């Protein structure tokens, strides 16, 4: 059992045209920068990307959009990306918008072997179109289905050689849940330690979910809204 791969290219090996990828992060926070950059240097096309957001024009998933490597996005909020809108309006890009909590839960369900479940979010809105509606306890709910991916790509703060992961602050976001729902899950981490060095009571992602792990490099960690205290 050797999960540690040499570099990002070994990590993304096997990702191919028309596959479905989950990509962690919320906005630009906690995104797997190394893997996205490496993917942007390949010829892989036709990707379906499940990611809460679509990056900005020149960073994050925006890099793959610019190269027209993505044919479909499943997201909850995509408002920061001009190229995204252009491709959407021109019909080059398909987009499926999900309520953010429904998106997170669909991914959890994918990882947890639950093919479908009911939530109140979206009832009475266009999100409900085509979905089964059912009343429970006097409240209307939609049936939502699980999401899985060929590859889930996540970014963690610390990881060990068994694939156990710990995320930092709000850089966790969709990473932890996505790690459970990839047929193959790739984890890039800021710090890679031998098994046994992380507190076993404090593991966010147990290693069973991670098939490949590597230490990422040169994290830019770009900030979208640098907001500081006014004295």
């Amino acid at each position, binding site marked *: 059992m050797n999960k540690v791969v040499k570099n990002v290219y070994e990590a993304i090996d096997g990702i191919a045209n028309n596959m479905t990828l989950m990509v962690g992060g919320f906005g630009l926070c906690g995104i797997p920068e190394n893997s996205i950059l490496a993917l942007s240097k390949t010829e892989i096309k036709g990707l379906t990307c499940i990611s809460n957001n679509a990056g900005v024009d020149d960073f994050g998933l925006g890099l793959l959009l610019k190269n027209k490597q993505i044919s479909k996005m499943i997201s909850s909020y995509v408002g920061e990306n001009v190229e995204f809108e252009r491709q959407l309006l021109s019909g080059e890009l398909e987009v499926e918008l999900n309520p*953010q909590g*429904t998106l997170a839960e669909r991914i959890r369900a994918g990882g947890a072997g639950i093919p479908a479940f009911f939530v109140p979010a979206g009832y009475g809105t*266009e999100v409900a179109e085509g979905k089964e509606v059912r009343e429970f306890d006097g409240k209307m709910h939609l049936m939502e289905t699980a999401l899985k991916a060929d590859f889930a790509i996540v970014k963690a703060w610390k990881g060990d050689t068994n694939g156990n992961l710990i995320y930092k602050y709000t850089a966790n976001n969709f990473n932890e849940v996505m790690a459970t729902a990839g047929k193959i899950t790739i984890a890039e981490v800021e710090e890679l330690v031998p098994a046994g060095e992380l507190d076993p009571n404090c593991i966010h992602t147990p290693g069973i979910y991670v098939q490949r792990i590597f230490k990422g490099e040169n994290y830019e960690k770009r900030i979208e809204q640098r907001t500081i205290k006014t004295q």
Partner: protein
Amino acid sequence: MALDKNQIAQRIAQEINDGNYVNLGIGIPTLVANYIPSNVNVILQSENGLLGIGPFPTDENVDADLINAGKQTITYVKGAAFFDSSRSFAMIRGGHVDLTILGAFEVSEKGDIASWKVPGKMVKGMGGAMDLVSSAKNIIVAMQHTNKGQSKILKECTLPLTGVNCVKKIVTDIAVLEVTANGFKLLERAPGVSVEEIINSTEGKLIVEGEIPEMKLY
């Protein structure tokens, strides 16, 4: 005189009780945090995975791994907890957040809310708004009463909905309204704003009973 954004936030802050767990949406709702009295202990939830939002950081303390749902850099308070998005929305969907404050384009007299999409404008997405409005125990909307003279307090929403039958209270630049089974009940008016002006600015059914007090901003 109509309230400015900060005054709307100031009025909404009065709706928050000690011990409340509150989710503040982007825009005016975010400003509410500035007006919570120091003796009212409130824990702010950020749907990207934090219970216990603190003030904005100093320049030296900015951490790219610590942002709110509006993607702004923040800090966390003592006793905070971080978690992933599925657990954050489990918390929201499960009704554990006492109060959600968010903006809106339109609200209908049935408590429907439209806040995420304007046909013909750039598609942004609903983010967490649909989850929040379908699940919070109490939902207060912060919004402008009118847009270019057109009422946004309506009989029926005209824009794509975010949720149905969910808004409990609305604080606009000119009034505080409660959503009731019979329509919008006028609770308060902005200082210097007449009841007549509010009636004229409201398309949905407005219930005006007795003397309508002026909002107190403190």
